[in-house]
Every structure is written in C-alpha cells, then in structure tokens.
C-alpha cells in the first residue's frame, strides 16, 4: 500500500480513525450552476461525465450537446478504459525501406491533457487503486497508465441508493468511500455537497468556483443520505478466510466443475470489471507503418495462455474460470496483502449471461 498513493498528493487534513478526512470544509453547489462550471472547465480539462444512452449509461467527454445524467446507478462499462483504453497504440514504426528509421519502433506521443472523471462511483475509483498495483508499483511503472492517471482528477459521486448487486462495503470500500478520490460529492436533491479529499481535488473545486460553504443543514442531510445508503446495501461477500487457506486446497476444490458448467467463456466479466488489468500486445501493419498495440485480454479466452508451441496450460474452461476467481480472491490477496481484487461494483453479477455470481464463488472458497 505504501507508495501507492504517492502520486496523489496527500489529504489536506488529518484522517480520523475511520480514514475520513476530518473537518474539511465542505462546499455546496446548486446542480445547475455545477454543470455550468463544469462546462466552463471543459475547455482546459477533458471532463468525463455519465451520459444516458438508449440502453445504459456511459462516460462521455463533456462537450457541446452532451448532457450528463448524475442521477444514475452506474455505467455499464467501468471507467477503467479512460485511463487504460481497450486498445492503445504504444509504439509505431516506419516499414518503408527507404526510411533510415525503417523497422525501428518509436514511442507514440503520450497524451497529457488534464482529465477529470466527474461522477465516478466510489467502487470504480477503488477499482483504479486495485489496477494501480499492477501498473504503478516500486518494480514497474507503466508509463502510459501512470501518465494518464497522474493527469486525472477523480470527482466521486457517493451512492445514495446502491443497487441490489452491489457489495462495495464488504471488499474494503463503501458507497461514500473516499478511497482514491480527489473530491467526494453527496447528492442532496437540488444541490451537491462536495468535499475535497486531496490537494488536487481542492484545486479542481477552486477552478470550478462558485461553491458556498456547507451549513449544518446540508451536512446533516448528507449524513442521512449516507446512513440510508448503508442500509440499502444488499448481500455481502466474505473472503476473509481465503487468505489462510492453502492454494492447492482451493485449486483442487470440488466445486469448480459445478461453477464452470454454465460458463460460456466470454469476456463479459473481465471486460466490464473495473479491476481486471490483463492485456495482450499485438503488432499491426497498415500500409507502410507498423503499430504496436496493447489490447485488453481476458483469462476466459483460450488464446490467453496458448503457448507458441501449441500447448495450452489452460485449455479447459474450468481451468480458465478457476484462474479468474483464484486471481481475484486468492493470489491477489496473497501477493499484495490488501484485500481482494474486486471493488464490489456488481457488474459481473448483473451481466454474466449464465449467472455465475462472484458472491457465491467467494462463499464457496471461503468455506473450503
């Protein structure tokens, strides 16, 4: 954990035992004014907001004609792609033999436009913290992920009414958790109450301007919203005993075949997940240029582990499914000692076409 938040300038006030910044000056913004101010900022910062499209919500860049909808549960796809696109060009080279630099890969310019994700849910912000362990750690710093994340401000919107498949509070988060956030917003009806959690967040709010100091009425209201949200959280998961179990006992448990029967080995769970980070590198040629591209990959796909020799150590779907849950709930815990690789957003629970439910699998692993 140490160093993980190093890029985030620390909180501006002391933390209470619950990890919450104390006595921070909360501000209130009228919703219509807030939107106007976001639009004004959108000239210098690329601001992502939740937008309702016919079927579901997605994060889009705030621009002309883009109407944010902050009255939403969550986006269908997690916002991880804003920092870690599903396909990203890393290097390029010329394939023109007359070019002296032919076949020599060069860095593609990194985009350092300041970003802000406004309205991100605390679970998805927590998701960035999990993905960060892979892309930004003492051993490796992924320049593409790190530069984009550093330039991003996370303006979280607390969940007043968590969904029935949400379980953030049992995996180290919460509907109003400040983890990884720069600002946390409370929806108070016609107002947002905002608390800057980091210096970066304070700067963002100052740039936006127009906030008035929150009075006791607003604070009281926010407290009530928070309390009622906590009550609405549905099922919890328990993974606390998994860490103490032997890998082999879990690996050889008899329930995997059962869980895997229905699995169609699609990438829905991994691609909707805010915490799955695996990728594949591909070279592609277009005319006289070559690109080296990083694409999301999924441990559900047979190709994920196919060796050059033709051997595939995970050629059965049960092996692939087991890998996904073992990684999230066991290997990750063992390696980082920081909980599970899941932020409890519930997307996979809701959208797995064959209803494989991570909450049930965690229970089964916990009870091996």
């Amino acid at each position, binding site marked *: 954990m140490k160093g993980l938040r190093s890029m985030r300038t620390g909180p501006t006030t002391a933390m209470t035992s619950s990890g919450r910044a104390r006595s921070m000056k909360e501000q209130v913004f009228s919703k219509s004014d807030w939107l106007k101010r976001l639009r004004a900022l959108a000239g210098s910062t690329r601001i992502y907001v939740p937008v309702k499209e016919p079927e579901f919500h997605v994060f889009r860049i705030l621009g002309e004609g883009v109407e944010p909808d902050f009255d939403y549960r969550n986006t269908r796809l997690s916002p991880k792609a804003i920092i870690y696109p599903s396909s990203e060009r890393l290097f390029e080279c010329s394939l023109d033999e007359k070019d002296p630099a032919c076949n020599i890969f060069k860095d593609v310019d990194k985009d350092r436009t300041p970003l802000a994700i406004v309205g991100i849910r605390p679970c998805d912000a927590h998701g960035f913290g999990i993905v960060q362990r892979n892309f930004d750690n003492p051993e490796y710093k992924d320049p593409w992920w790190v530069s984009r994340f550093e330039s991003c401000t996370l303006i979280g919107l607390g969940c007043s009414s968590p969904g029935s498949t949400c379980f953030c509070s049992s995996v180290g988060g919460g509907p109003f958790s400040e983890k990884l956030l720069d600002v946390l917003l409370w929806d108070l009806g016609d107002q947002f109450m905002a608390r800057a959690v980091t210096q970066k967040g304070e700067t963002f709010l100052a740039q936006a301007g127009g906030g008035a100091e929150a009075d006791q009425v607003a604070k009281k209201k926010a407290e009530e919203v928070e309390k009622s949200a906590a009550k609405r959280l549905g099922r919890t998961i328990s993974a606390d005993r998994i860490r103490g179990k032997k890998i082999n006992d879990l690996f050889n448990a008899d329930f995997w075949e059962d869980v895997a029967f229905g699995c*169609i080995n699609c*990438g829905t769970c991994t*691609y909707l997940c805010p915490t799955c980070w695996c990728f594949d590198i591909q070279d592609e040629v277009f005319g006289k240029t070559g690109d080296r591209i990083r694409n999301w990959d999924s441990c559900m796909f047979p190709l994920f582990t196919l060796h050059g020799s033709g051997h595939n150590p995970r050629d059965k779907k049960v092996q692939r499914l087991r890998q996904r849950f073992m990684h999230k709930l066991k290997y990750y815990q063992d390696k980082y000692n920081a909980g599970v690789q899941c932020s409890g957003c519930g997307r996979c*629970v809701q959208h797995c076409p064959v209803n494989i439910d991570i909450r049930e699998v965690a229970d089964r692993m916990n009870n091996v």
Partner: protein
Amino acid sequence: MERYTEEIRKRAGNLLKEGKVDLFIGYAGGSVPMMNRPILVRRPEEAELLQWDSFCGLNLANYLTGCKERIGVIANGCNSRNIVNHIVENQVKREQVYILGVPCTGMIDRRLVSSAVGGKDILSVSEENGTVTVETAGSKEQLNKGDLLQQNCRICTHRNPVIQDEMIGDPVEEQKGLEPFADVSEIEAMAPGERWEHFSRLVSNCIRCYACRNACPLCYCPTCFVDDSRPQWVGKGSDPVDTMTFHLMRAYHCAGRCTDCGACERVCPVGIPLRQFTRRLNRDAWKLFAWEAGMKLDERPPLDAYRPDDCNDFFR
C-alpha cells in the same frame, strides 16, 4: 410456462433414477432476477433445482457439443431445432440425447422489463399465467408478458419442440399470420451507404467479449477464425474494421443454420441487436431454398449439399 417446473423435476429425476440418462441439462433459478443459469444434474435429488419459466433463453444445445454420455435435456422449439442441427452436423448422436420437450410461449427480454420500470433496480420478478410482477425498491408493478417478449419470440412459429422423446404438457398453438421478415425489409429499404452506417452504428459499442459467439450453439469451431494467430485473419483490437469483420464473418458462417433462437442478443452485455446480422441470411435460406434450419433430421442444410435444382445458375 412456470407450471411445467414440477413435472420437469419429476421426469428428470426419474430419468436419472431409471438410468435412462447419465446427466440431465436444464435451467435453474439464478441469484439475480431474470437470470436463470444452465445446470448439469447428475443425481436424481438434484433435479429439484430445475426450473422452467420465461427466463430460459439460453440455448442448451450449446452444452451438448462433444458430450459422450447419455444426456437428458429440456427442449422448447429453439433448443430442439438446435439439437437437430447438432445431430445433423455430427456434434451429438440422436440416440445419445433424451429430449424432454416443453412447449414455449416465448422468453422475456429483461431489458424490456428494466425499461418498463424506468430502469429502477429490480429486486424480484415472478410470473403467473402471462402476468409478470416486478418488484423494485418501493414499488410493485404488474406487466403483461406479451409486451416483454424477446424480438425473436414475437415472430416465432416453432414454439413446440420439433423433436422430442417425451412431452411435458400439451403443445401450444403456433403463432400464425405473422410477417416474419418485416425487420429485414426495413433494412433492405435503406440506401447502401445508409445501411453500412446502420450496421456500423450497431456494433459501435462492441467490446469484443464474444458472448454472442460463445452463446451460439452454431459456434462450436475448435478455433474460431478471430482466435487464429497463425495466420491471424483479424486484428484483435477495437478497430471498427476488425469488429465489423468479426460480426459479418460470424453471421455468414451461420447462414442456413441459424434458428433465430436469440441467444446472441440475449447475452450481449452492451445490447447489440445481433439478429439483424443473421436475419437476412435466414430469409435468403427461406426464399431460395424453402429452408428453415433445424427442422429435419434427414436433410442436409442447403449450403452443405449439392442439388441439381439449385437456385443459382453457376451451381447447376
């Protein structure tokens, strides 16, 4: 629909008890509303888990591919037609499967339920005699099942199994007087450029998760062309050209084989109406060869057989 559950449990349990089948494949209730899961039943007492209702839209033929055991399986019209496909295409033997036929009055599209309640978080859904009761936080709404059907079920003319060893319940009346390809005509009426735009828009949200392909009982190739790496036919990233290539090639590979079961649409996590890619091909099969996939055990599919009366000159 729901009233067949008891009978299915009883019959599946007996088949296992009597040793007529080694395994039984059916649906069980899921952990979230409207999401049943396919299950494999091995012991008679586990048959109690089986369930039949309007959320059994995944095609079970998908789970028969390559099975060596004797398998009992629940089959409505779609499942049975894909089982026929599987037998004709040598993916499973007729004598291996014991088909417990069940009439179907259509599957419910959970997206329609969700929009009918204004996108509210759905806590439970139950159905009785065509009335669907949806419970959300703070409300209970009654909806008409007929308004919530999957698109393919609205135009379905094979609600009863076309092949079975035993029926649960009496066959239901088949829908008549429908215009089955009105959707195709609409797309056909577009100018070519407009049509290309239309299909490009359809797949613009595609995340290449391959849920459509993997839920499709026709897609049993050991290695799909998109997964080939030597040679690599298609780029694996999110380039629109590659995404479109995947969808078009997959659709063509289903020509004359697609039963319009709707599994592809049902599973798509981003709501792509994937049937729009296969519907025209289904109509061609019908118009040119008077062919509906999965109806006959003793006839080869049109694109896999030579016929002297073929509709194409070059073929004769």
